[in-house]
């Protein structure tokens, strides 16, 4: 916000830097004076937004044409200290967790392939959060990262249980492995979500939980491979499927509903638009199904913006997650939250904000 938005030309530095999402909360929860002030500033915001939109060119300016201040805001990242505490366990094909500790932080390779791959991949994800978003481990306070491989027998799954993650080996037919960077980043991000306020694992809030986990999963993969958004395949679980299964992975953010079509697995059921939102009691209200909609919004946003997904798009999604304070949030609230984050990070009327609104509209949000 600039000085000119302040009433009567007076400079109120605190009023002038309060972001809109905070003003909306103040308008609801503040006393009469605070609420009036917040509503007045929101009206002025809206006026400025309308004036800017009249001048916004639909094509995105190239990166080097970004205003210096906005570029600096978006790219000025602090890193968190990179002191990892990875503890990889071998479940020895039984259900008891965490199993036997086989590799702790700094230890040499064990020779147990899945344990060593888990060690490396979890390090990639911890580095992503530390270097790009200044987050020290899943809780932001350097908590140990506990993982179990070889969990149970022929176990076609991976999960986060609130304290650690666990990975099966698959049955060799439908799934050949779950030790895949996108799956590992997905499960670790469930931990980040939990420690960021949480999202209830049911219905739309649960689908958001799933979607945010998928978003940072593809971000981790793309960053590891050094890919731009246009080079990436946008697939979750690309290394999971068995040799005879017809599909490219478990989910596609680029084309929800197309990841697999197979006699054994069936067809990928994910929608990409609110028109096809599935109301179901299965899968906790379709958390792995309807996540296709916000997944696709993130993909579209990245396509509109270009560049690297872990930079501006990832910063916005991460900021929105940290700012949100509602474990029961639905898709509409989340879309608002991300737009608010884009405004906070890059400014009202910025290309990031405009393109993000466009991406959400393309998936039918807000409804």
């Amino acid at each position: 916000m600039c000085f000119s938005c302040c009433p009567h030309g007076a400079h109120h530095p605190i009023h002038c830097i309060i972001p809109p999402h905070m003003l909306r909360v103040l308008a609801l929860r503040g006393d009469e004076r605070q609420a009036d002030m917040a509503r007045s500033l929101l009206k002025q915001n809206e006026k400025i937004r309308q004036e800017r939109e009249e001048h916004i060119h639909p094509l995105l300016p190239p990166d080097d044409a970004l205003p210096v201040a906005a570029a600096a805001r978006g790219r000025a990242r602090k890193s968190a200290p990179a002191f990892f505490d990875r503890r990889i366990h071998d479940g020895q094909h039984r259900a008891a967790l965490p199993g036997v500790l086989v590799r702790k932080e700094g230890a040499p390779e064990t020779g147990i392939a899945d344990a060593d791959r888990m060690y490396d991949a979890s390090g990639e994800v911890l580095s992503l959060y530390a270097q790009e978003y200044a987050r020290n481990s899943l809780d932001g306070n350097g908590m140990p990262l506990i993982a179990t491989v070889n969990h149970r027998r022929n176990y076609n799954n991976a999960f986060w249980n609130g304290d650690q993650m666990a990975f099966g080996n698959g049955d060799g037919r439908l799934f050949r492995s779950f030790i895949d960077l996108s799956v590992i980043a997905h499960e670790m991000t469930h931990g980040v979500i939990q420690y960021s306020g949480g999202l209830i694992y049911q219905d739309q809030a649960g689908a958001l939980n799933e979607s945010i986990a998928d978003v940072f999963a593809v971000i981790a993969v793309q960053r590891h491979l050094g890919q731009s958004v246009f080079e990436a395949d946008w697939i979750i679980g690309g290394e999971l499927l068995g040799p005879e299964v017809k599909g490219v992975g478990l989910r596609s953010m680029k084309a929800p509903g197309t990841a697999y079509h197979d006699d054994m697995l069936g067809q990928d059921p994910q929608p990409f638009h609110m028109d096809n939102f599935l109301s179901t009691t299965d899968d906790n209200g379709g958390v792995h199904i309807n996540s296709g909609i916000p997944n696709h919004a993130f993909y579209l946003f990245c396509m509109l913006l270009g560049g690297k997904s872990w930079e501006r798009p990832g910063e916005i999604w991460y900021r929105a997650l940290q700012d949100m304070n509602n474990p029961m949030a639905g898709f509409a609230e989340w879309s608002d939250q991300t737009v608010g984050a884009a405004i906070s990070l890059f400014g009202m009327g910025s290309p990031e904000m405009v393109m993000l609104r466009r991406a959400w509209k393309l998936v039918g949000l807000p409804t």
Partner: protein
Amino acid sequence: MIIEISSSGGFGGLAAAALSKRIDVDQQSTALQRELCEYFEPRDLRQLAAAPCRSRCADPMIYRITVTDERSGRHVYTLREDQLPPEMLDLIDQM
């Protein structure tokens, strides 16, 4: 006694990746019969299913367990994998 177990959910949310098992307890060895009766006693399953679930689990498998015997009839329970003791999960994997 007949025990039927099916699963759903998980990382992929896939019904097709789910297991489906049926075991006739009376046809098993004495040792296995004892184990199955111990872990799949309807009263105990009811307690497990009724326990408040404070888990922050994401991507768990969900198990639907149907126990049918001549005396007490058919009982159906739905439980998340983090509600089941590890010994019971190992037994399910062995079936």
